[in-house]
């Protein structure tokens, strides 16, 4: 197991380095010059040269890449072109917002869909199953941002449970911040919950028909015993993979949702810094998103290995 984790960790670092190179290369190739963008067309060549050397853009490509790469491990991505402050300080708050939002939405997905999926699988064809199937169909076909608008309207404007657009920074009021994020988190989670329930139910029913389930019945197991002792461990694997993908998607969907709820998160930062060609910020942001996805997939692999001995003992 330890060996497996180390192997995956090394793989993660290699992927990170490759990804960082691709990200850096892409923003090198994108047309547009941040220096000209900042100074305008009437700038003198001397001024342009001095800003270029101030930002370090006169150094060769690989030198700049290696300082970027070094920055990943020291968490120092240089100075933002537009804000004139360090990228790390600029992004710290945004990352906290999106991380909390994603984790909240993900917990909602897991804690709602796993018990509900098990329940409807156990009572297939029953009343609850029919209700959940109907709700699933509806929830799956409504995109998160529409749901976000609906939630803003119903809970924000009609019921007045929260103030629309009234984002509270975690620095000033942590509980207020967490409370406000519940609403976008739910908007993010609902469509995923629907998919997750369907997936889990389908897998449980499929596993329950396999030979080993028949053996378990032949030993005198009841449905509950079969479900928890045998089926669940096998049936949960695809759901774990799916939750991993959902987690990765949370960051990207979060970019849309934060617009709906006017949260000053990564998304707004990303859009504004792309339009001002603030490359240190954009590169750091894209890298953070990529890193988040990599960590999630690393975690999924480890959970798989814990549950399934065939994964763990393969090598």
């Amino acid at each position, binding site marked *: 197991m330890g060996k497996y984790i180390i192997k995956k960790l090394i793989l993660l670092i290699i992927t990170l380095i490759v990804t960082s190179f691709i990200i850096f290369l892409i923003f090198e190739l994108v047309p547009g010059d941040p220096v000209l963008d900042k100074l305008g067309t009437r700038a003198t060549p001397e001024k342009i040269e001095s800003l270029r050397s101030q930002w370090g853009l006169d150094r060769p490509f690989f030198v700049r890449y290696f300082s970027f790469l070094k920055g990943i491990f020291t968490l120092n991505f240089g100075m933002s072109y537009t804000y004139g402050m360090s990228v790390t300080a600029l992004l710290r708050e945004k990352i906290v917002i999106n991380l909390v939002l994603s984790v909240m939405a993900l917990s909602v997905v897991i804690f709602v869909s796993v018990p509900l999926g098990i329940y409807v699988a156990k009572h297939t064809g029953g009343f609850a199953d029919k209700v959940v199937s109907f709700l699933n169909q509806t929830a799956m076909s409504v995109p998160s941002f529409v749901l976000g608008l609906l939630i803003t309207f119903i809970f924000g404007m009609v019921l007045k449970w929260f103030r629309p657009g009234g984002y509270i920074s975690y620095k000033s009021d942590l509980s207020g911040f967490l409370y406000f994020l519940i609403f976008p988190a739910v908007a993010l989670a609902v469509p995923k919950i629907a998919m997750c329930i369907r997936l889990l139910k389908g897998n449980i029913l499929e596993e329950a028909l396999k*030979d080993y389930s028949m053996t378990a019945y032949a*030993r*005198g197991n*009841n449905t509950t015993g079969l479900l928890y002792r045998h089926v669940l461990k096998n049936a949960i694997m695809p759901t774990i993979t799916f939750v991993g993908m959902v987690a990765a998607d949370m960051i990207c969907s979060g970019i849309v949702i934060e617009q709906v709820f006017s949260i000053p998160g990564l998304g707004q930062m990303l859009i504004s810094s792309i339009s001002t060609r603030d490359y240190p910020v954009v590169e750091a942001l894209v890298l953070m998103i990529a890193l988040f996805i990599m960590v999630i997939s690393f975690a999924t692999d480890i959970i798989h290995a814990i549950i399934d001995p*065939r994964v763990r003992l393969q090598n």
Partner: protein
Amino acid sequence: MLTVKDLRIEFFDHELPEVAVKDVDFTIEDSEILGIVGESGSGKSMTAMAIAGLLNRKDLTKSGVIDLDGIDLLNLPRTKLREIQGNDIGFVFQDPLNSMNPVLKVGPQVEEAMRIRKKTLGLSKEEMKAIAIENMKSVGLDDAERIYDAYPHQISGGQRQRAMIAAALVLKPKLLICDEPTTALDVTVQKKIIDLLKKLNRETHCSILFISHDLSVIRALCDKVVVMKDGLVVEEGSSKEIFSNPKEEYTRQLIF
């Protein structure tokens, strides 16, 4: 000990009933080995599953009598049936790899019949493990301690089937049902499993219902033989009779 009378199993496929097993009769006496032989689709596995109470599908009806020492298995409520499954009847399936749970270790699967009845049996974890290991040794798994902690994919096919037999016998059932237990194994392993079943039958006196399409296996093992075709019993008799003097044309075809 086991009496099957007028057993009839019908499917409902697209509203039309389809008969899988028709009027099957046979009896198994104490410590007897009965073989059911027939080609695929003859209803032999269906019969075995019905006896073990494993046919609970809604699209299926069963009628007749399955009597195990005075208990009518066919009309027994599910809860009562579960007490018998694994306790009075042990079941060994065809494919030992698929019939073991891939994510559980072998030991806990061998113990499971005991573990389900932990409260009634009053056994501790260590006692159950000891019984499981003893059982695994008695079916010829010499390094039972290692296999106890191994996963199904880490042991060989023959070892898996032995472990499945140990699991089925862990509560000393009166009847062991083996549904083609040797079909998925190599020929040399087949022979060893047959010898093992013979030995177990001699030592523990448990009756065995052995299902196979392979006549040579049946001949080597069984006291009595039932030949089935298309859900019907074609011929029934002692192993000697059937193999030396088959009465029916179909049996003759099977043998030669």
